[in-house]
C-alpha cells in the first residue's frame, strides 16, 4: 500500500520543493491542521474517565470514615497512619521496594549480557534460544504456581523475598532481553571496533561506547521490570506466608478480602501503592516512548 501511494506522489513533492509559491501548503502539513476542538474534546472526555478513579481513591483516603462529601474536607490523615502502622504497610512498603529494586538490577544485568550476545554474535544455539524466548511469552506464570512453589520449597526459599525476586526476574527476562538486543543492534558495530583499535578490551569498549547510547533502552527495560515486580502479586501471595515478608499488593488484597472492607484504609493503602510507580512513570514517560520505538518495533 505504502509503495503504491508513495511512488506517484514522491516526484510531485520534489517538483513542489524548488518552487516555493505555496509556502503555506508546504509548511503546514496535514497532521498540524487538526482543529483544536477535535483534540481537546475527546482528550478531555478521556481524561475525565482516567482521572475520576484517581480522584475517588484520593477522596476516600483523605475524608473521615463515613463521610459522603465529594470534596476531601476536612482533611484527615488517620487512614494513612492506621494503614502504615496497624496494617503493616510500612513493612510491606520496604519489602516491595527491596523486591522492585533487586528485580530491576538483576533483570537489567542479565538481560544486558544475554542481549549483547544475541545482538553481536552468531552462535550455534542462537535460533533455538530466540525461539525459546518467544515461546516463553506464552507460558503463564500464574499456571506454573504449583511447580514453582515446589522448587522454592526444595531450595528452602519459601518465605524469603529471594523467591519472589527470582521468579519476577525470570518472567521479566525474555522480553527485556529481546528489547535490549534490539537496542544494541541499533548501535553501529563499527563504533565498538574503533574502540578496540584504540586499545580497549571488549568490556571496556562496551562500557564506554555502547552503554551511554543504550540509556533510553535501559531506562525503559529497568523501569518496566521495577513497575512490573512492584505491581505483581501472585508470586508474593503464594511464596510468602509470613506477614512480615509480604508486599504491598498482597496487603491490598488482604484489606479487600476482609469481611467488612475498611474503605478509608483501602484507599490510603492504594495511594501508598500508587505513588512510587506513578512518580517513576511520570519521570520516564518520555524515555519510554523513544525506548519502545527504537527497540520494540524493529524486529
Amino acid at each position, binding site marked *: 500500500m505504502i509503495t503504491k*501511494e508513495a511512488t506517484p506522489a514522491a516526484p510531485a513533492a520534489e517538483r513542489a520543493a524548488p518552487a516555493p509559491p505555496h509556502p503555506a501548503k508546504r509548511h503546514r502539513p496535514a497532521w498540524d491542521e487538526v482543529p483544536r476542538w477535535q483534540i481537546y474534546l475527546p482528550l478531555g472526555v478521556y481524561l475525565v474517565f482516567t482521572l475520576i478513579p484517581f480522584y475517588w481513591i484520593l477522596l476516600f483516603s483523605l475524608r473521615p470514615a463515613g463521610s459522603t462529601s465529594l470534596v476531601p474536607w476536612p482533611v484527615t490523615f488517620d487512614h494513612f497512619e492506621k494503614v502504615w502502622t496497624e496494617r503493616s504497610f510500612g513493612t510491606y512498603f520496604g519489602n516491595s521496594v527491596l523486591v522492585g529494586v533487586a528485580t530491576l538490577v538483576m533483570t537489567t544485568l542479565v538481560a544486558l549480557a544475554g542481549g549483547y550476545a544475541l545482538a553481536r554474535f552468531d552462535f550455534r544455539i542462537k535460533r533455538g534460544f530466540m525461539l525459546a524466548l518467544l515461546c516463553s511469552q506464552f507460558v503463564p506464570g500464574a499456571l506454573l504456581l504449583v511447580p514453582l512453589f515446589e522448587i522454592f520449597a526444595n531450595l528452602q526459599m519459601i518465605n524469603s523475598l529471594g523467591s519472589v525476586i527470582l521468579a519476577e526476574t525470570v518472567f521479566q527476562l525474555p522480553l527485556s532481553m529481546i528489547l535490549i538486543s534490539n537496542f544494541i543492534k541499533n548501535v553501529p558495530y563499527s563504533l565498538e571496533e574503533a574502540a578496540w583499535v584504540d586499545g580497549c578490551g571488549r568490556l571496556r569498549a562496551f562500557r564506554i561506547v555502547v552503554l551511554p547510547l543504550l540509556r533510553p533502552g535501559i531506562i525503559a527495560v529497568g523501569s518496566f521490570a521495577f513497575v512490573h515486580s512492584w505491581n505483581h502479586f501472585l508470586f508474593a501471595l503464594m511464596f510468602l506466608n509470613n506477614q512480615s515478608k509480604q508486599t504491598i499488593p498482597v496487603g491490598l488484597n488482604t484489606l479487600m478480602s476482609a469481611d467488612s472492607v475498611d474503605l478509608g484504609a483501602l484507599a490510603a493503602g492504594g495511594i501508598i501503592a500508587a505513588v512510587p510507580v506513578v512518580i517513576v512513570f511520570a519521570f520516564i514517560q518520555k524515555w519510554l516512548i523513544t525506548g519502545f520505538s527504537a527497540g520494540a518495533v524493529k524486529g
Partner: protein
Amino acid sequence: MAQAAAVAKPPAPARRRRASATPRRLPYLLIAPAGLLMLGFIAYPVISVFYYSLQEYNPTKPWRNGFAGFDNFVRIFTDDAVFWDTLVFSAKWVFVEVGLQLLFGLALALIVNQSFVGRGLGRAMVFSPWAVSGVLTSAIWVLLYNSQTGITRYLADLGIGSYGTSWLSDTSTVFPAAVVADLWRGVPFFAILILADLQSVSKDLYEAAEVDGAGRIKQFWHITLPHLKDAIILSTLLRAVWEFNNVDLLYTLTGGGPAGETTTLPLYIANTSVDAHDFGYASALTTVAFVILLFCSIVYLRLSKFGGENK
C-alpha cells in the same frame, strides 16, 4: 586479565587482538545466566506440569496418587461443564477487552501524537493508569462500585438508578463493570505502543499525500494504518495472551463471582490447584490452556499475515 596483557603488547595488530578478545565461548557465557534461570524456573516447571497432567496427584489424598494416563484429559472434555463455561468466558473476556483496548488506544495515540499545548502533561495523565497494578485497579474500582458510598449513590442522588445498587454482585452488570475497570488500565498499554510506532512514520509520506490532495481520513487508511499493521498485530497478540493469563484483576475484583459468572479458565485452574489441591487435574487443565493459546496464536499470526507484504 588476558585482555589486559594483550593491551600491553603495543605492536600487536588490531585484527589479532580482536580475535583474542572474542573467544568462542563468550556468547555462551553471556547467555548462560539467562539460559540457566529460564531452564530452572520456566522450562522445568512447564515439563513438570506436563508430567503431572498424566498423574493423579493430590497431596490431601495421597493414597490415590499415581499414573493416570489420559484420565484427566478425558474428564476435562467429557465430564467438566465448568471447563467449557470458563473457556467460553475467557474467550469473551479476551475478545472484548483486546478489541476495545485497541480501539480506544489507537484513538488516544493518534490524538496525543498531534502537537498541541499541554501535550506532555496530557500524555502523562492519560498513560498513568498503565503503571497501576491489577490489585490496585481492583481496589480503586471496589471503591467506585461499592453500594454504600460508590458512584451509584451519587447517581441515585441525581435520580439515576436506585440506592444500594452493587454492580459487582449482580450477574447482569458484573461483566460490563469488570470490563470497564480493566479497560481503564489496559487502554494506555496500546496507546503507548502505538504512539511509539507512530514516531517512525515518515513525514514525507504525509506531505506527498497532501500534495496529491488526500484528506486526513484517506491518509489514515493508506499511510498510518499500513505502517502500524505489524505493531498492531504483535501488540494485540501479546495483550490477548496477557489478558487470557492474567488473573490479578478478576481474582481480586470479583473473585470469579458472582456465581462463577466471571471465572476465566486460569482462575478456575488456580482455584483447582490452590484451593482443591487437585494438582494433577489442574496440570491437565494448564496443558489444555497452553495448547489452545499456542494454536490460537499461530492461527492469528497466519491469518493476519504478520510481517507480510509491507516489509
